[in-house]
């Protein structure tokens, strides 16, 4: 059992009791000694009673499996008293999605109190909470007892998605069919799907001789129908800054939710991918992770968002990793969109990546994210954004700078 912590109020009461005791002793006034004893008794009772004030309490947390960064999520905290009597003045604090403290005046024996809270998912990624802290200073607030109880909750916070119109760096397609299907359409596209038995009309160029030998029948390669224009979205995950280092004024948000540059990269990537899907395009995404380059292809929107939700700073620069990209990743890709924070030091690496992609795909666009600060280089954030953009323009890429506080949809309306 952890001990109770005395609060300032206990000192105030004891000092008051001491003063009254001295006055009572000086005047031999018994009632003053009674008052002093009452004050000390309140301190003692207020110290002793919290010792049992958290006994028998059980807490459950209920949270949504998924939510979106910046959105309000409902999290329910349930307190049950399995002991006797009642527990007073309970404060329950948990850090699920956002640190939240709630207050329950009383929980009676055999009673379950369900507290529905709403809180903003301030951080992207997987959130797992294992404990809830209980505190009580009842009844007199002179001493506080704390206890941490097990309560399990998990939520994946997806990046925020900004509704975008037509993407300037992807040509519109003539079909209204969605680009994502559960099964790919077979056809003449460049994507290799598998092998099947030869049918009349199949080109002999597509005969797959190893399979033919193995099966004893003519087998041909089967390809996915090329009905979509693909966009490859590459997210620069080299580094990020802790959110508390971002000045609120720069972020333009309220004091606590400050999306980091990587959060904003993911928001941009998610928004572009969602818009691409909506306009019939296919989208692949790639990003460096601490385990190497990760590519997600043939995924639907929720999968893309989950993939983006889990991205973390990798420490791997974007430029060198471009060479690690498998050729299949750029196969059929019409446009590559680099989404990168505009760190001044990252400029050469991003430019190298843009140049590298420019050699293999027809169109390279780059969304450069304003960082709000650039302490590493000592260069002002706006200047860094400008410098990185200039170096990208030099490679022939289209550049879309997204400063802090600007509207992404407006930004993607035109390039610099």
């Amino acid at each position: 059992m952890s001990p109770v912590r005395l609060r300032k109020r206990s000192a105030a009461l004891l000092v008051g009791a001491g003063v009254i005791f001295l006055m009572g002793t000086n005047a031999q006034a018994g009632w003053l000694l009674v008052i002093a004893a009452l004050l000390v008794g309140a301190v003692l009772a207020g110290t002793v009673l919290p010792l049992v004030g958290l006994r028998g309490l059980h807490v459950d947390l209920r949270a949504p499996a998924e939510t979106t960064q910046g959105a309000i999520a409902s999290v329910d905290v349930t307190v049950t008293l399995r002991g006797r009597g009642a527990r007073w003045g309970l404060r329950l604090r948990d850090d699920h999605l956002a640190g939240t403290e709630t207050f329950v005046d009383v929980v009676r024996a055999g009673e379950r109190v369900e507290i529905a809270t709403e809180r903003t998912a301030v951080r992207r990624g997987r959130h797992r909470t294992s404990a809830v802290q209980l505190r009580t200073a009842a009844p007199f607030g002179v001493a506080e007892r704390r206890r941490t109880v097990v309560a399990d909750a998990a939520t994946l916070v997806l990046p925020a998605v900004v509704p975008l119109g037509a993407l300037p760096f992807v040509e519109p397609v003539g079909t209204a069919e969605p680009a994502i299907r559960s099964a790919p359409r077979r056809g003449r596209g460049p994507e290799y799907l598998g092998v099947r038995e030869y049918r009349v009309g199949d080109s002999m160029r597509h005969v797959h001789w190893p399979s033919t030998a193995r099966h004893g029948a003519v087998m041909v390669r089967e390809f996915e129908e090329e009905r979509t224009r693909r966009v490859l979205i590459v997210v620069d995950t080299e580094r990020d800054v802790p959110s508390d280092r971002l000045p609120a004024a720069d972020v333009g948000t309220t004091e606590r939710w400050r999306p980091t540059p990587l959060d904003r990269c993911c928001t941009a990537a998610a928004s572009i991918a969602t818009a691409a899907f909506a306009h019939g395009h296919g989208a692949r995404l790639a990003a460096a992770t601490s385990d190497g380059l990760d590519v997600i292809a043939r995924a639907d929107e929720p999968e893309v968002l989950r993939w983006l939700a889990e991205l973390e700073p990798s420490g791997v620069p974007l430029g060198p990793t471009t060479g690690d990209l498998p050729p299949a990743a750029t196969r059929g890709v019409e446009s590559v969109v680099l989404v990168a924070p505009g760190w001044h030091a990252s400029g050469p690496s991003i430019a190298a990546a843009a140049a590298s992609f420019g050699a293999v795909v027809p169109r390279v666009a780059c969304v450069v994210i304003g960082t709000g600060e650039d302490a590493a280089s000592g260069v002002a954030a706006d200047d860094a954004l400008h410098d990185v953009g200039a170096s990208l323009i030099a490679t022939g890429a289209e550049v879309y700078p997204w400063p802090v506080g600007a509207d992404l949809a407006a930004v993607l309306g035109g390039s610099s």
Partner: protein
Amino acid sequence: MTRPGTAGPPRPDAPRRDGADAPRRDGAAAPAPAPPSRPGRRRKALPEDGVAIRVVVACAVEVGIVSLMAQEAVPAATGIAALVLAPLGYWFSFRRRYDNAVVVKILISIALLAALGQFLRAAREASSVDQVREPLATLFLWVQVLHAFDVPRRRDLAFSMVSSTTLVAAAGAVALATSFVWFLLAWAALAAAWLWLSARPAGGEVAEPVALRRAPTGRRARRGAALRSLVAAVVTAVLLATAVFMVTPRLPGNVVRALPFSLGGGAATAATQVYETPNAPPADGEGVVDFAPLAYPGFGQRMDLRARGQLSDEIAFRVRADRAALWRGEAFDTFDGTGWTSSSEERLGLHRGWEGDAATVPPEQLPSSSTGERVTQTFTMATDQPNVVLTAYAAERVYFPAAGLVVDADGAIRSPITLDEGLVYSVVSTPPVTDPAALRNAPPVDTAAADVQRFLQLPSGTSQRVVDLAASLATGRSTQLDVVRAVEAWLRERTRYDLTVPREPAGVDAVDHFLFETRRGFCEHIASAMAILLRANGIPTRLVAGFGPGSRNPFTGYYEVRFADAHAWVEVYYAGIGWVPYDPTFGVPPASPSWTTRFAAPEVLRAVGGAIGRVVPESVKVAAGAAGRLVAHLAGVALGGWPVALLVAASLAAGVVLIRRRRSRSPTGPADEVGRAFEDLVDALAGVGHARTPSETPSEFQERVAADRDLDTEVRASSDVVIRTFEARRFAAPDARPSDADVLRARAAAARVSHLVRR
């Protein structure tokens, strides 16, 4: 809808404090509500929206005002005005708690200056400290009332509670009666309510839930659980406060000598030579004035040992002093066989100005040698008393609300006015030396000296057997002290205190009759017998009438002296020292009280015991007494063999400590949380076909679980966490054992597995 950190706007036009709007999807700056601020970050306090806490504080202040009025510490008009205005102020302050209060503050400041000016004017006109009391209390009340108009925040309300505490304390300092407890109880209940309400989170401190729902669980909900819990908390607080009160020491205080009455202009200035005893009955046919319930006939020209009757248990007066004493009223030197008179006609007026406002007793009236201590007493008359100024011996200075005090040759002080109900006066006394060594070394008294002769007077009819008894008691005693002690001891052993003894036959020497016929009598008989036996041995002695110490009220701090405490004792003269009191009936309260008398516990227990004794049947009392005696006997036996008892107690304590330490170190005890998590995990996995065999180690069990690809990845990972923590708890070196956080993680992982496999 409210969200974390908002706590609900108190009113529609109050500014939003969180800045939270509808979530935007522009990807730029989706505002979020502010969660609770981090510890240590100081925020500006918001106005207090709670009505209950304001009502409680206002009521506490009202109780303080009423209690002051009940003690007549403030003028009634001022009190009534404060009673009306204070609640108005709190209501006004609540209504305008969000408004700019600059104008209000300016007006309050002006009013405060006016109240201060009035106080200073009254203080300038005051001729004594006492005359400032009432204006000061009035000023404080006005400060409190004006403060009530500007208490927007919780902190301001806390100041009001401090003020109410001060008001109640001021009332308690002058409260005479136990009935003050009702004010104190009301205030204590309100203070407890304030402590509870102010400990609740303030506005914006915690998240306001969107919804809060209460539902019964599977267990049967206990009715009245909250009420019982509340009662238990209150009882705990009361018991602890009582325990603290009982062990709070009553230290000798440097008692304030500024008096609760005015010394300016005495009620009368003409000294009177006549004793006036209110409520005294007329003399009977033999010229004897008997006891009346509210009149002790011992104060007057003559104390007659033939007087009979019962005195009332009504409180005669209260004394505030840091120790018990015999409250001396009058002394007699001449005994005629049936009563005592004073032969000295000398009266000396006591004058003020010798030391401040006090009437000072001339130094020659004081003992030749004193302890050097000063005992301050404040007497408050509860009923009309004779014009005898009661004091602890020997009075040095008297603060009395009238001029014209006189003191006789025996140190008895007489007032020109009767001591009417409500009269208050204070006395500073210097106790005589009672140290046995000093008394034993005192030189022999010069019995031939003129000023000693009258204290050796014996009635002409003193019988030979009285003289013989006195001589026999002095046989073998080498010092005066030894003789005095021998006489005192003999009287205690051989005589019995009895208020029902019949009056002596006419013409009989009362002392002789008491010593050789009845040996029963009351304090006047016993003290007279001692005086005569000592005088027969040549020891100067005088008889003193007054009151016993009474009983100290542990709550008010006053000694409550009743009419039935009227008493008589003797004073014995020691050469070079002076007069020393002896009480052969009940004994003289010690000049230096022992430390055990410094606590209220015995008095409280006695009072509680008395209250219980009045309602408990006699048979129960007898059984309880027997049980008490048995316990006392056992305690005596244990104390007699204290080394063995000490050894047994030490062994028990060591055993308890060892068991506790072993339990805290043992990872296999019932309190092992990791063990419970492991058991929960095993139980959960048994439900999905992974029952653990008895011979299987935790690691082998985990290998089997991890190899089952049909199980959820999360289940396998969580199982790994639990089992690794369990093994570390059981088998790792002490410094590599899991931390509290690891234990929590393991418990959470076990709970997760249970949840997942159920799903």
